[in-house]
């Protein structure tokens, strides 16, 4: 197993892929390797990309990656798509838009299902960012599932968060005001060759004017036609500017601390859930309590207290 850690640190694609699978499957082996590689993490610039379904996130990521590759930077991409809550299966199709990146040793793409998480990410994403970081990637791009309004977990993991919008959402941008429209470090109005781009930009800008009123940094609003590679160079510059801004101010440490907090909470949550729902002692107790709840012999709150009492004693 020591072998895997060493290979990951050298950037071996097979070992990186293997370790990601182990982490995703909650394998105890992964935990040990993660401990070993942790000191080698923290160097990569983590960029989160979020936006509604069909806004062009994958295409934008492909073009952005090409821009970074021209600068000689190595890029890791984590593309998340929803896991079906019914079958537990998933169709992960983000690679289709990234075919131009195939066969480039400096790019590593991994598709992941949400596997039950609701915030637009997946539980193992913290580990996967660290694995790609430790393997020598300079930039790690995290693509969330197509979001509605409240899937904002990406800010916890990203140093820089891009929110992608398209023209024609019209007034619905207003409804996005809370949640997704609060998390952007940079807005990108993609598909800017379509009708209504001026209106979309104006609406976002008026939002930015209000929310950035007393802030040192005004959130930029850019336009792009990702499919034609337009606006990508400018976007890469703005992302660079944001990174410099983070470093100059104390924001960088704050941002990273937020990530470590989210990761810590997620690890504990996962372990607790496994403890309660996988340990046979609890399993029986839970079944027993579920029977009683169904028969109205006990209420869910009291049942929860009984289980918590067992853990906390």
């Amino acid at each position, binding site marked *: 197993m020591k072998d895997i850690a060493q290979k990951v640190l050298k950037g071996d694609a097979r070992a990186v*892929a293997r370790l990601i699978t182990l982490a995703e499957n909650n394998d105890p082996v992964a935990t040990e390797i993660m401990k070993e590689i942790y000191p080698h993490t923290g160097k990569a610039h983590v960029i989160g990309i979020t936006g509604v379904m069909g806004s062009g996130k994958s295409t934008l990521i492909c073009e952005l990656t090409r821009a970074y590759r021209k600068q000689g930077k190595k890029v890791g991409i984590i593309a998340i798509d929803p896991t079906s809550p019914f079958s537990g299966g998933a169709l992960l199709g983000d690679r289709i838009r990234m075919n131009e990146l*195939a066969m480039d040793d400096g790019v590593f793409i991994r598709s992941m299902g949400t596997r039950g998480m609701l915030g637009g990410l997946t539980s193992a994403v913290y580990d996967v960012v660290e694995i790609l970081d430790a393997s020598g990637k300079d930039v790690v791009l995290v693509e969330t599932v197509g979001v509605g309004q409240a899937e904002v977990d990406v800010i916890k993991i990203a140093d820089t968060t891009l929110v992608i919008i398209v023209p024609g959402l019209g007034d619905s941008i207003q409804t996005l005001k809370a949640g997704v429209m609060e998390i952007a470090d940079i807005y990108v109005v993609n598909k800017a060759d379509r009708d209504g781009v001026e209106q979309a930009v104006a609406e976002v800008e008026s939002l930015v004017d209000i929310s950035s009123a007393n802030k040192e940094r005004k959130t930029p609003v850019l336009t792009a036609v990702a499919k034609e590679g337009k606006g990508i160079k400018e976007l890469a510059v703005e992302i660079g500017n944001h990174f410099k801004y983070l470093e100059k101010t104390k924001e960088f440490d704050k941002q990273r601390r937020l990530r470590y907090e989210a990761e810590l909470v997620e690890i504990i949550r996962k372990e607790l859930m496994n403890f309660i729902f996988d340990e046979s002692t609890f399993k029986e107790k839970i079944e027993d309590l579920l029977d009683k709840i169904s028969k109205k012999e006990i209420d869910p709150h009291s049942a929860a207290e009984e289980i918590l009492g067992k853990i906390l004693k």
Partner: protein
Amino acid sequence: MGRKIRVLVAKPGLDGHDRGAKIVARALRDAGMEVIYTGLHQTAEMIVDAAVQEDVDVVGLSLLSGAHMTLFVDVAKLLKKKGMDDVLVVGGGIIPEEDIPKLKKEGIKGVFGPGTPCDEIVDFIKKNVKK
């Protein structure tokens, strides 16, 4: 959570018909698998590269152009070369009966022609995937 079967579904070569591949991809998803679909016009190298990065348990190839003897075999060989011997390779499309034994000999463990019920493919994968 725990382990899930991960499958790469790919269309090698030049034909542009991916309806079959998409239907199979959906069926595998509905059977609880994680399916990575890479789209059309893939070379054997692209497919194997993606299989390595995605660390899949199964590679499913779909081809209707008649080039299966070259392209399916190339993928199976390249996977072995990259040390991915334990990956289950299956294929489907318009494939003449007489080619099926040859393909199996080259490491394409399951070959499914038109009209194969999706359940049959799901069962085959579940039975033959390396645990």
